[in-house]
């Protein structure tokens, strides 16, 4: 019998289970795109059939890091840029959990960029939502890794001399097996993409465009947007890696030219997840490790029996 009876509980899930019944109410600014992520995530939960006690939502620092304050589940509001190493280890410890990591563009593409690259290459079975608003919000409007070249802010008074990070291309190069971009202004697509991302057996990267009406003085709403999987002018096949590379590159460029291209850029359903790879080489048990500590019948190994002979 599992020590974690919330996992796999078969019942109807109501999205309101994920809404805290009392305060704290979200403290994001009116019109903030972060509300769109929260709403889409709550809507996606009943569709994947997960309840609050079997979901672990790990966040970084920033406005986006507050997500699990307003989302009722096991939450881990960690430190700047480190949501991925914490969350992927939790998934290894108990693969039956639904593990989601979330953070901003500074958190994921800046300070945590190394973790992003490596978590993607390992293809952990988890979802990573990056709130991309092209600005540092909580510290009041500094230039971020995705701010366009020439972006002026108090810390970049003459405009940024840097080309922005290309998040979709970076995810693809690093090895993510599901790559999508959606926007807070497109709630239906956002919800569908989050459902797919959570159902995908591998590392799913969702670059979520979240407008910042307070600090991004251009106050871009990411409209109009074009869904590359539906629009006639794009016959994009997300299972084709080369096509995905070209499409990602085009979308990244287009964003800075005022055109918002969203949708699924890359989907590789065949690639085994990291847990499957580890299990295949005998470096990870088939049963969730976390269960073992609650199993009174488990016979724990002793080094005295196992390892001491070589020292005699």
């Amino acid at each position, binding site marked *: 019998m*599992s020590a974690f009876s919330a996992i796999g509980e078969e019942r109807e899930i109501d999205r309101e289970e994920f809404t805290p*019944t009392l305060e704290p109410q979200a403290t994001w600014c009116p019109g903030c795109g972060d509300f769109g992520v929260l709403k889409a995530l709550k809507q996606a939960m009943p569709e994947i059939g997960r309840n609050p006690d079997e979901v672990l939502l790990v966040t970084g620092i920033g406005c986006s890091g507050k997500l699990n304050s307003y989302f009722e589940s096991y939450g881990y509001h960690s430190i700047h840029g480190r949501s991925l190493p*914490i969350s992927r280890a939790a998934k290894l410890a*108990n693969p039956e959990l639904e593990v989601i990591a979330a953070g901003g563009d500074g958190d994921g593409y800046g300070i945590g960029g190394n*973790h992003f690259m490596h978590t993607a290459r390992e293809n952990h079975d988890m979802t990573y939502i990056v709130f991309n608003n092209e600005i540092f919000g909580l510290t009041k409007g500094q230039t971020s890794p995705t701010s366009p070249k020439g972006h002026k802010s108090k810390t970049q008074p003459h405009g940024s001399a840097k080309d922005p990070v290309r998040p979709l291309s970076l995810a693809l190069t690093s090895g993510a097996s599901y790559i999508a971009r959606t926007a807070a202004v497109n709630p239906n697509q956002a919800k569908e993409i989050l459902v797919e991302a959570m159902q995908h057996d591998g590392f799913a990267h969702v670059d979520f465009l979240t407008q910042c009406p307070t600090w991004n003085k251009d106050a871009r709403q990411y409209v109009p947007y074009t869904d590359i999987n539906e629009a006639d002018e794009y016959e994009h096949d997300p299972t084709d890696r080369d096509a995905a590379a070209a499409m990602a590159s085009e979308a990244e460029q287009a964003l800075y030219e005022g055109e918002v291209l969203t949708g699924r850029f890359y989907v590789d359903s065949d690639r085994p997840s990291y847990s499957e790879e580890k299990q295949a080489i005998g470096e990870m048990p088939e049963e969730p490790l976390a269960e073992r500590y609650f199993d009174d019948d488990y016979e724990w190994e002793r080094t005295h029996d196992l390892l001491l002979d070589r020292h005699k």
Partner: protein
Amino acid sequence: MTDHELMWRIAGGSGDGIASTSQNFAKALMRAGLHVFTHRHYPSRIRGGHTYTEVRAKPEPVRSRGDGFNCLLALGDSFARNPQEDAYYGDEEVKPLAENLDELNEGGVIVYDTGLLDSDDIPNFEQRVEENNWHVYPLNLREIARDHGREVMRNTAGVGATAALLGIDLQYFEELMAESMPEKILEPNIEILHYTHDLVEEEFEFTHDLQVPEGSHDEEQVLLSGSDTIAYGALDEGCRFIAGYPMTPWTEVFTIMSQALPEVGGISEQVEDEIAAAALAMGASHAGVKSMSGSSGGGFALMSEPLGLAEMSETPVVLVEAMRAGPSTGLPTKPEQADLEHVLYTSQGDSNRVVLAPGTVAEAYEQSRLAFQLAYGYNIPVILLYDQKLGGELMNVPASHFDREPNPDLGAVTTEEELEDAPHGPGGKFHRYRYDAEDGVSPRSIPGQKGGHFLVTGNEHNPAGHIDEDPTNRVTQMERRMSKLDGVREFLDDKNTQTHMGPEEADYGLITFGSQQGTVREAVDRLNEAGHSVKGIGVSDMMPYPVEEMTAFLESVDEALVVEMNASGQFRGLTQKELGRFGDKLSSLLKYNGEPFEPAEIVAGFEASIEGQDVPDQQTTYVPAAGD
């Protein structure tokens, strides 16, 4: 002394097989009934560079390197750089002979490989041999190895020669070789062993007195390093997850764990950096698996931020820190104890962690186990602080020391049944951080448990884990977290983690922490034999500090000398900070040249200190007490 104990040093270049040969040599002597202890010296290079390992063996327990050594097997550095005239690093090829002579005791034995070493290249060799009454046995070990097998087997030839000169039965070496070598290389090795042994007996007239002493063990012994015992303690506490990034000397623990964990259904992760390593260990621990990570100084610096989160979020985790000489890259393969203040205080905010510094190979096993018991019992990060010396030295320990039950207990966690009756907030969140928790320890739920969800945050938070900046909440939660250290202190008091040495009553004290314990113990014994009134204490609890025990110790002596391997007297400083007095009683003996203390250096340091003189040896430093 020469016929009482053997201090054998095998010297060559990195890559010459010094470590494995010396390990087998030590094990052979252990099997022959002796107590053994090894001391490693190696450069930060893969191929070439002077390397040696010393094996000290005698019939009585041996807990430290000795003073110098009495038998040298110099193989030469087969990977040496080609020396130019006036090269920065000198003639590397002959260093295994040349560099060791200063520490070779009078009357000592030298075996060197004439296949690579020419004594004419050693300045004043003949004169020094005569002056020191050394006994020299030149042998072309390379040629012997080449003729009977392969040149790399010269180490075996050297062991055969040593065995003949010192009267060690070859059977111990044969057995060890048979256990570790495939047949193809076993045969020529055995032949080389015997051939060299017999050749030495036939060709040379022995002029030395040194013989291997005889001894016997009451019970079965095992030969382990501190890295072995730290890993084994973790495994026996049910640790089944490790994450790390390679760095000398912590890599040893990481390697041992990575090889053992798949055998017991555990998980090892080598990751992108040490920030990730510590964060992974915390993530796995949060999800219900006993976990660890670790590094050495530079890598541990990267763990500062996750460490602080572990304190604030009360996520249990064990981090090991294997010190090497700093600052920065420092002396990557040499020991030092200069990261004490680093591990005590790194990360923002008030420290709320446990730091243990085991003193011996056997203690490292016990304290590795204690580290997990404390981390999971109190939901607090625990750091096991050791160094390149303790991690790498081999010592015999009774096998029965490890004959203990495993302890996979997850500590302060809830079950689902307990969660049903546990307090929850109005939103349904489990009160993970209760104000009224017993001993300050509020049990955690594990993700997946029904009715257990709550929020972890690095922000200050209320009982449900929500961010909360209310001053009263702040003070309550701070005081609750800090109070856990009181419980830890009581827990440790029952475990006798400090090691007392010498007589109960004495005029003088020797104080040390961590890996210098065995050497200080030997110094305490020698000083008492020489008529001094000295007792010693090896301290393991760095945080929470054993205030009562140390107060009693310091009140009982007139003066105390603090022995540590760093330049600024960090442990003396900690002692004064924690006790708030005794500044006029505490002097320091420091060493930071990359080598651990020898017992005689501590004896000399003590004698200088009570006579108010400077230490005679430039490699150690004496700092007098305040007011002196």
